[in-house]
Each structure stands twice: as C-alpha cells, then as structure tokens.
C-alpha cells in the first residue's frame, strides 16, 4: 500500500491522474483548469495530459455543463468544473433537465457518466453569492448522485468512485478544505453510499458531512469531557445516503442530531431527521444555518456558521 501525506486538493489531483492514466475517455473541462484551477484542484494535469484532455473553457457555464452531457453521451467521461456551486446555477437546465433525466427520458438509450465538481459552503468573507450549500437541491433530483467528502482520503477515494460509477454525479468539495492535509492510501477504495463512523458512542447519533465534520469532532470532544459518548457519522455520500448505518445507530442511541452548514430550512438534515423519526421513532433534532444569506463582515458571516458550542448545546438539549 502507498501512503501519502496530501492536501484535500492534492488528493483530488491524484485521483484524476490515476483515472486519466487508466482511462483515455476521462477528460476535464472548465474555466482556468489549465492553470490548475483557482484552488489548485487540477494542478499539473494540463501539463501532463495536454489541453485536449484538460480543456480551458470560456465563461459559459451552460455550455460547459451541456457540452459535458453531449461528450458523455458520445463516449467520454467528462469532469465538469463549475468553480463554485453558486455558479452552477448558470447551468441548471443542463444539469437538472438534461444530465439527470437523459438516461430515463430516452428509455436507457444513453448514459451520462459525468462528474460535475461544484465546491460548496462558506468561502471566508466571500458573501452571499459565493457561500451557498445546495446539496439538498441535488438530493431531491432523480438521476443524480451527490457526494461531499470531508477528508483528503475520502476526496481521493470518492472522486475515483464517482468517475467509475457511470451516473451523473454532483461532486461538492468544500471551498475551504483545500488546504486540509491528511494521510491518503492510494489503494483504499471508498464506495459511494457508505457512511463512515468517526467515533463510537451510545448516548447520541450525530450525523454530518463535509467541513462541518470538524466542528462536530470538536463538539464531541467537549461532550466526551462531560462523559457523553457520541456516535459520530460522516455521511460522505448524500445520495444515495447510508440509511442502514444511520438508522442502526439511531436504533441504538434513540437520539439523532443532524448538523450541516446549509440553511437548516429544507436542508438535507430534514430528510435524515424525518426518516429517523419515521423509521426509528427516535427523538430528532437538526442544526443548520438560519435562513439568511451569508454576510460579508466576519460578525455577520459568523451568524451562518454552525460551531462546536452550538452543536454541543443542541446535543445536550436533545439528551436532557
């Protein structure tokens, strides 16, 4: 096994290198990818694979996504770069009405094996138009797979799995995790749809994903100091989500807290909480951002952040 210490972005680059070496059909298209992408998530790939496979695109999100669909139908496996999820809104018809529905709508005549990378979440001090978390939208849409990795290892493994799965995948990295370092084992395959238990505990089931896992871990430390052992689960894939793991944990703990960075109202936490309440009949609580746009000033932006204290408090409330 080959262990490497990599950043979240380096792990993604490595995953793309492996897939592009193994499969000539895998290509990349998007703005600025030739310079490695603004977050370095394509660093060196155009130099290594040429500008026909790592394609610099005009500022044309609709055409980037739509061309990705056409390329996929014609036998390629495009990685479609949207820069941030906020700009993917400029290619929504192409993603929702075309990529997601093509296979079904045409009765299985075609396939759209495409990975649309659209980093999400609060990008420090970037305000309302660059800070959204929209994973719940994509989980709501038949035809799409939704992935949201929280570590370099998962970003490596899940990006490879996404490219291999053959479905259109909305791949949501976090705008501020790029520098996060960690050990990456190239030989570990991370399956789609399987959550990861990060901590074991019987007091409470805590489910989260992406950057929010860090705040949850910190909250677990605080709770552990109080003798509260939390079952912390990183969902990793939001669709299909790992009902089995989550509901089994809920059955054990009888209490579920779902935490995400997205606005709480109609966020994906509602789906998990409602499912647990329906299936396990356990007590549920959610913690997400208030239904407000993300502001620029640090004090305003902080209102949209879900921190360890708030998480621990919500856990105590659920236990009390």
């Amino acid at each position, binding site marked *: 096994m080959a262990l490497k210490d990599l950043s979240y972005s380096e792990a993604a680059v490595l995953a793309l290198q492996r897939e592009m070496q193994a499969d000539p059909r895998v*290509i990349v298209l998007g703005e600025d990818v030739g310079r490695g992408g603004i977050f370095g998530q394509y660093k060196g790939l155009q130099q290594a694979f040429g500008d*026909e*496979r790592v*394609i610099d*695109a*005009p500022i*044309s999100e*609709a*055409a980037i*996504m*739509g*061309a*990705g*669909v*056409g*390329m*996929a*139908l*014609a*036998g*390629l496996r*495009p990685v479609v770069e949207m820069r941030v999820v906020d700009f993917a809104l400029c290619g929504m*018809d*192409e993603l929702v*009405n*075309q990529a997601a529905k*093509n*296979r*079904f*709508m*045409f*009765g*299985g*005549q*075609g396939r759209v094996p495409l990975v649309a990378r659209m980093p999400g979440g609060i990008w420090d001090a970037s305000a309302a138009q660059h800070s959204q978390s929209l994973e719940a939208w994509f989980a709501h849409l*038949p*035809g*799409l*797979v939704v992935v949201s990795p929280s570590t370099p290892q998962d970003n490596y493994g899940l990006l490879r799995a996404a490219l291999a*799965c*053959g*479905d*259109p*995948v909305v791949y949501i990295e976090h705008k501020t995790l790029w520098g996060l370092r960690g050990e990456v084992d190239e030989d570990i395959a991370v399956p*789609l*749809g399987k959550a990861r238990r990060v901590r074991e505990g019987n007091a409470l089931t805590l489910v989260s994903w992406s950057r929010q896992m860090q705040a949850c871990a910190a909250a677990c430390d605080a709770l552990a100091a109080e003798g509260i052992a939390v079952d912390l689960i990183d969902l990793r894939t939001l*669709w*299909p989500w790992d*009902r089995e793991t989550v509901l089994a944990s809920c059955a054990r703990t009888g209490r579920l807290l779902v935490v995400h960075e997205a606005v709480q109202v109609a966020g994906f936490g509602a789906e998990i909480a409602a499912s647990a309440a329906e299936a396990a009949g356990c007590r549920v609580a959610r913690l997400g951002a208030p239904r407000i746009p993300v502001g620029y000033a640090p004090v305003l932006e902080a209102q949209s952040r879900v921190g360890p204290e708030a998480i621990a408090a919500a856990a105590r409330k659920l236990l009390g």
Partner: protein
Amino acid sequence: MDPSNSGTALYRAMVRIRAFENAAETASQGGVSAYGQQAAGAAKVRGPLHLSTGQEAVPAGVCAHLRASDYLTSTHRGHGHTLAKGADLARMMCELFGKATGFNGGKGGSMHIADFSVGMLGANGVVAAGLPIAVGAAHAQKLLGKGNDITVCFFGDGAINRGPFLEALNWARVYGLPVLFVCEDNRWSATTASGPMTAGEGASARAASMDIAATQVDGNDVFAVHETAARLVAEVRGGSGPRLLHALTYRVKGHVSVDLAAYRDPAELAAALETDPIARARGHLLAAGVGAAALDAIENAARDEVDTALAIAEAAPWPEPGAAYTDVQTTGAGQWH
C-alpha cells in the same frame, strides 16, 4: 441533381414525415390541457405534440447527407428529424402511444422522441437545450478521432434568443468542432411572431459575428436545401469547423396540435401554403419527367406504412409499472424514498 433517383428519395422522405404527423395529429386531439383546450384523456397520443407540417424539406434535405455514425440533436418539434435520420416509423408511433415497444419504452413520448442507434440523440422539451449537447457530442467526435463523423444540430428561430445559442456557437468555433447548425426559421415562437422579438438579422448574422459561416436557403425547396446542405456537410466533414444553415420555412400548424393559431393572419398562412414543400417538389419532379404514378405510389406506400404503424402501436403492450424504476440511475437504484 438527378431528380429521378435522389429526387424521389427526398420526396419520399418528406411524404413519410407528413403522413406520420397527420396521423399523430389526429390521434392527439384532446390529448393535452392548454391553449383553451381541456384534455379528454382518451387521446391515443397525449401531451404536447409539435408538428413540423410544411417544414419537411429541411430535415429531408439535410439528413440525406448523413450516416448513422453522425449525431443529430433535435428540438421539441423532432418527428421529421428522427424519421429523416433513419428511425423506424412504427417504433416512433409506439413511443407517441406511450407503449413499451417505443424507442424510449414509453418514457418520453413525442417531446423526447429519439433513436440513438441511428445517431439521433433526441428531441428536447427545453428550447435551445440541444445546442450545448450537440457541441459536446461534436467535441467528443473530434477528441475520439471518429473518422470524419459530424453532428447536426437543429433548432428554431425562437431558440436564438436563448443564451445557450451563443454559448454553443462560440464553443463550436473556439474548438473548431465538426458541427452543422441548422436553424429552422418558421417565423413563429409558440404564439408569438419571432420577428419583433429578435434583434438584427437573426441566426445568420449572429453566427457570422462568431466567425461561423452561415448560408441562407429556401427551406421549402427540398432540392435547394439538399444542394446547400451537401456543400456544408462536406465542408464540416472536411474539417472546416462549424457551419450554419439558415433555412427559411413556415410553421403551417399551430404551435402544438391543439393550438388553432387563431392569433395568426389567415393571409399569412394562405401565402405559406402556396409554397408547400411537398407540392413544390412534386411539381419539380413531374416537370423533370418523373411519372405521377411513381409519386402516387410513394404517397400510398407512406400512408400504408403509417396505417400499419398505428395498428402496431395500438396492439403493442403498455410498459410494466416497474419500468418507471429502471434507467433512473445505477448508484442507489432501489432507494426510491
């Protein structure tokens, strides 16, 4: 061209489209609630049905130069494109009837008619959505070094006012892709005349501004379309990069089959009917010495083919309810709630 061979072939292509759509139109009455109509529910062909009646010369003339390995993207008005690209007429009718034996297994209907096996990548319910998909397909053809296959992208005059039109044409030129854009300019956008909604000279002028050579043609003259398309298709196959064919035609029917188009000046329609592409082609062919009997035979054969298709579609089985759960996606299949 020598009208006696390919001339009759073009005639046949148009006549089959006309016959197919006439039958579909009849079967679709009461099939959708809109334009002041309430769906009866009993219609055999349901949902919005967009007819290309009067525009048959464009797909017939263009697709005569295509092969199965060439791709085609279509619009909501795609029956003609699909037939001309070589799809089986009976299976198309089955799809319009929503039967399991249709090309989409009953999942798509008219607005999503397609036959990927002949390179017809599908009609589309979203105006202009086919353009980015077409340039992507052409991009793949270029990268995969698919001989000199090309992609043909049909769209309407109203579609040029949607952003993806610009993004796709720019894309095609920037990467020098083998794509032929074909604007079917029928002068209408649903119930709205396209002219007053369109700045400048339309598709040709906009293509030229993006360095894509555009050619206008009388879209109701199938021989002119055939001849012009021959040159453009040859150029695109030869590696010229994108070209645009701007075909001037007219939408004879309402926007959808239940739309009576009462908003339209009858004189405009009457004038357009004078230039019906099938009647004109028939005149040309007769003048060129083709016998009336031969042409009548073509028309009768088309009618017979359509009647047979109707019977096949009528007799064909409905999809299994379980088919609603197939071809959604592979990852997570089975997790529907």
